[in-house]
């Protein structure tokens, strides 16, 4: 039943009734990778408590950015419309973990932090799941580009999270498959060498897509829909692009990573690594992929390990498990792998960023 690196097409043709293969507990017998952890590498000012570390990323200087769910997500009573404010913040630290500054304080869109990434020019990109916005901040912390629009208001009583058009006018509208930059719970962003922008969109929605924009933010195309076939998704949790421009999509609900070319043509897929809930591609000549089989926040007794794979999907090794101690993980939502053996992981469950040193 090994699925490692295997094209699933034949499997699906032979056993269409077994599309529920994802429920079958097959795990790679991958070697364990030894590692150490610094569980609190970032020194926060006393007045700031981290909260759910949804996103962590480094820039070329080694500075660390954390996009976190903290403070008070607030709904205020307007007229007939309730308005959402606050709930997430973006912090910067230097490579020694010293606090540098906050970026985007009291800005309009920071509601539920989902991810932060840093592009090759050291611009900082934040993805917010509730405001459905992707924001490019220049290295000085000023807004350089906006994709998507925060819903003007929330609907009372709230619609289910997977309902289309969940939010009010101006945001969250059609969600997946939309031929536009209106997102519905986006989760991640990546770029190809030409600077084109790819957004993973439609988390938890009836539908799901990858949306592609050119480098000035003009919509190019989107692909994908809800489902388990090739090119379909069930809760996209991450996206990464290799040096050749191939797009790796963490299709968590289908327990697989799908690979596309930059135009959205399906190339391959691989599984046997649990539910890929956070992924990261190392830079450089010999790229490797990290993928976290993150435990759900309400369970630390299963999963939680992170896999290291080559770009064909072959598992090189794995490390860690769910838990609350050092070297254990609480619902990893982000991995930074700018340096192959020195990772930062952002944890939802443990309100922390760990710095890991892998021993190969």
């Amino acid at each position, binding site marked *: 039943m090994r699925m490692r690196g295997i094209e699933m097409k034949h499997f699906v043709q032979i056993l269409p009734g077994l599309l529920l293969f994802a429920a079958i507990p097959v795990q790679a017998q991958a070697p364990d990778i030894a590692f150490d952890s610094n569980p609190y590498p970032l020194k926060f000012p006393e007045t700031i408590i981290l909260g759910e570390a949804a996103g962590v990323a480094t820039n070329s200087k080694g500075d660390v950015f954390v996009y976190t769910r903290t403070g008070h997500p607030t709904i205020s009573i307007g007229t*007939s419309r*309730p308005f959402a404010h606050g709930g997430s913040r973006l912090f910067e630290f230097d490579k020694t973990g010293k606090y540098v500054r906050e970026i985007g304080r*009291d800005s*309009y869109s920071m509601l539920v932090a989902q991810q932060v990434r840093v592009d090759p020019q050291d611009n900082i990109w934040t993805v917010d799941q509730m405001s459905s916005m992707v924001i490019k901040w220049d290295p000085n912390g000023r807004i350089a580009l*906006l994709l998507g629009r925060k819903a003007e208001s929330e609907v009372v009583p709230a619609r289910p999270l997977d309902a289309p058009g969940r939010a009010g006018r101006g945001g969250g509208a059609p969600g997946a498959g939309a*031929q536009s930059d209106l997102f519905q719970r986006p989760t991640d962003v990546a770029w190809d060498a030409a600077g084109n922008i790819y957004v993973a969109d439609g988390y938890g929605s009836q539908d799901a897509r990858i949306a592609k924009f050119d480098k*000035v933010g003009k919509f190019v195309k989107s692909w994908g829909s809800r489902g388990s076939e090739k090119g379909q998704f069930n809760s996209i949790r991450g996206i990464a692009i290799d040096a050749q421009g191939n797009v790796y999509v963490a299709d968590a609900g289908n327990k697989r990573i799908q690979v596309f070319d930059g135009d959205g043509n399906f190339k391959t897929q691989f599984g046997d690594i649990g539910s890929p809930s956070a992924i990261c591609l190392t830079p450089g000549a010999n790229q490797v992929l990290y993928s976290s089989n993150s435990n759900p926040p309400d369970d630390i007794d299963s999963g939680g390990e992170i896999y290291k794979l080559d770009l064909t999907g072959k598992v090189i090794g794995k490390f860690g498990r769910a838990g609350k101690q050092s070297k254990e993980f609480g619902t990893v939502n982000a991995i930074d792998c700018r340096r192959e053996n020195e990772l930062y992981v952002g944890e939802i469950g443990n309100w922390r960023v760990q710095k890991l040193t892998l021993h190969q």
Partner: protein
Amino acid sequence: MKRFVALCFAFAFFSVGSAFAEKAKAQNVPEIPFDTVPNLIKLPPNLYLGEAMGVATNSKGHFFVFTRSANTRLFEFDQNGNYVREIGEGNYGFEFAHSVRVDAEDNIWAVDEGTNMVIKFNPQGRVVMVIGHRPDAVAGMLPSNLGPAPPAAKYTLGRPTDVTWDAQGNIFVSDGYVNNRVVKYDKNGRFVTQVGSEKAGNGPEQMNLPHGIAADAKGNLYVADRSNHRLQVYDNDLKFKSSYENIGDSWTTCVSPGPHQYLFTSNSNPNGNGPGTWETSGEIYKMELDGTIVGKFGHAGKLAPGFQVVHMMDCRNPNEIYVAEIESWRVQKLLLKPQQAKVAAK
């Protein structure tokens, strides 16, 4: 119903967007070249504009920006874009910014569609008059009302959008997303008359989302009748005069002062940036008051000098236009070169 339509609109316009914009736009309009002032606004650290809903200048050249950031806030900048101060911080009427205008005495008027209020600040930034009443919060969080609007009342606004004045100081409010009317109050805030009602329509004295308003020196009113894809002209008693229908969707409008007044209207690109929308919308028209189009400028785009859903303009100087954009969280100052206007080659 309108709000329901607005919700549906987001689903629908991708496929039937062309049907919404069936009115023919003017052809062979001269293109007015312009420069945008780079990095216009200098904000202090830890201050960010959110959606730039309103921008307006005063007689000294300072400009005011009404913005939706984590909270709705009103900022003042000098003519060079240096930050001066915040006005009305934390006041009860600020919830969801929509428009700011400065009257002839340099009073600053903020229109908030989250509290249904129009708030007049004097030049010192103190509140001197309010129109409308924020619904009491004691009822708690009410279920969203997607049904028809209640009858429009004299002093209760329904998500108002904009405000202007005539030479006598009468106050005209475009109202709005829930109502579909323009209300005239005297300078003391007493109801005089209205055109339109709570119901949307496309008759001459009806509107469908009156989204912006401006007055000329004679007291005529120009109303951006956004969802009717037209600009309506009413006289000072709010009687119908004319309708300009070849300028796309009129999101917002302004009238320049002086002996030769010009009228500006923005065919703003729709939210969402669907394919093809950048090619068919985003431009601003410069017109004579009688509707003759003088020229147009600008195009949709994320990065300056592109426009990203222009929500408001200031044209105190008809060759120096300020534009506030929703989806780029930005205010641009445009230096027009009308003498170089020409029709683009086919």
